[in-house]
């Protein structure tokens, strides 16, 4: 995960042996990416950020082309194509030209294609960029299913925080070419401090002093009629806070719970938000361009 230009695609390109690293070592499935290129290539499947299908060929032919390039024998090839096209629900459209496909269908086909030679690792470079929310959810479901059913390591890059949060067991935050944090989404979020509960009440002072007596209390801040309480597991403590105020006859106007998101994590590690990063980075133009390409 990281902003545009952080080095996500460059990292993937290097791991996929398309780009020579200027320095350092890396290995995929135990094979050195500089000296054992062919073995690395056999071990990985990849879905590029930009579409990489032949539009003038049918879905089946695109799959078949891939299978032949990876020297999969004909019998296995035909079987695999059928199985994978069913998995991504494109078997009915297998004889249609790819140029008639929507953006989401193309993505699905690319994912199926990337799995054909049974790679140990599947790289997905921004798999949902430029897709509508519905299609995005759909793709997420496929990705989750794949990692379970196919027992394949999936490495995906994204700059959508929720995508990383929802799909990934481990998240690395990359910025300016360096990985600055690597952990489970949960640990990353917990690592920057617990949840925040903000209570609005006319009698902030006394409520605060009542809450501070409890052992689960970590710290709090007060601002006019708002108290912000820092706790672990906010959901469990909202009710308690409500009960305390009720017991002490303190009126509550509103309660909001804020769980730290990966966005907060990112902010914590880089000192700025991804949105700020993107302002003026030409992202919009790029998106329009991509949308046009995908049609």
């Amino acid at each position: 995960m990281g902003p545009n230009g952080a080095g996500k695609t460059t990292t993937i390109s290097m791991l996929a042996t398309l780009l020579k690293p200027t320095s350092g070592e890396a290995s995929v499935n135990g094979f050195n990416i500089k000296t054992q290129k062919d073995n690395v290539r056999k071990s990985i499947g990849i879905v590029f950020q930009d579409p990489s299908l032949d539009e003038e060929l049918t879905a089946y032919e695109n799959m078949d082309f891939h299978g032949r390039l990876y020297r999969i024998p004909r019998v296995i090839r035909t079987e695999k194509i059928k199985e994978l096209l069913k998995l991504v629900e494109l078997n009915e459209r297998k004889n249609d030209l790819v140029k008639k496909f929507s953006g989401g269908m193309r993505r699905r086909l690319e994912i199926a294609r990337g799995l054909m030679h049974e790679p140990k690792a599947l790289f997905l470079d921004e798999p949902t960029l430029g897709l509508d929310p519905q299609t995005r959810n759909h793709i997420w479901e496929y990705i989750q299913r794949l990692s379970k059913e196919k027992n394949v390591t999936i490495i995906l890059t994204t700059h959508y925080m929720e995508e990383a949060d929802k799909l990934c067991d481990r998240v690395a935050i990359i910025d300016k070419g360096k990985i600055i944090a690597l952990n489970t989404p949960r640990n990353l979020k917990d690592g920057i401090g617990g949840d925040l509960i903000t209570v609005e009440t006319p009698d902030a002072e006394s409520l605060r002093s009542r809450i501070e007596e409890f052992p689960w209390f970590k710290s709090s801040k007060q601002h006019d009629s708002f108290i912000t309480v820092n706790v672990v597991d906010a959901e469990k403590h909202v009710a308690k806070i409500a009960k305390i105020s009720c017991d002490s006859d303190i009126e509550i106007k509103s309660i909001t719970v804020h769980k730290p998101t990966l966005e907060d994590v990112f902010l914590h590690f880089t000192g700025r938000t991804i949105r700020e990063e993107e302002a003026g980075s030409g992202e919009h133009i790029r998106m329009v361009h991509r949308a046009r390409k995908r049609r």
Partner: protein
Amino acid sequence: MDVIYTIWLRNVKRYLRSKSRIIGSLGMPIFFLLTLGFGLNSVISVPGMEHDYIRFLIPGIVAMSVLFTSVFSGIQIIWDKQFGFLKETLVAPVSRVEIMLGQTLGGATTALIQGLIILVFSLFLGGSVSSVTGFLVAILFMVLIGLSFTALGIAFASPMEDMHGFQLIMNFVIFPVFGLSGAVFPISTLPPFLRYLTYIDPLTYGVEGIRAGLLGTSQINPLVCFFALVGFATFMIFLGGYLFKKMKV
């Protein structure tokens, strides 16, 4: 071999599917055949040849359509680059040389088909094929032109990022190659400085080779043509392969 065949197959499939491309690239050669052929037939007699001008012209126009189709097929890898398909091919565990050879053979095949269509068409305009051997000789030279110039297209396309350079190649490479090849005029009567230019134009040997096959007479010995063109094809395939290998995606 599988890989070369796979790339070849894709090229041929794409070609056969794009009807507009087939018809579109027939337009210019047929136009040349009709206008030059009929327009100049009565005013030009080719020295040293008893044939009509139109029969002299036909091998030149066949060579022309092979030339244009093959360069275009080679240049096509720019589209593959832009539409991202090339990456899919390059990330597979196959050598780039295989990919380049598949592409070259595919381009040469489509160019040969295109040339044959023109040849068949020309039969209706008074053209003829002298013998089976002659026909095979003509095909051999068409294949050699196809291989050379698809490889040339790939060589040009490899370092190019987009199609902006295409016009440049058309105007400064392809048209001069065609114009200087003696496709539309006999080279033996040219002033010396121009004649030497035609001798360094590889297409000259292709045109003369096809002419030797179809008409049975030519201004350059067919064997000379054969070796000159095989040499050029080999050179271009090596150069194209080298540049394709160095290409960045």
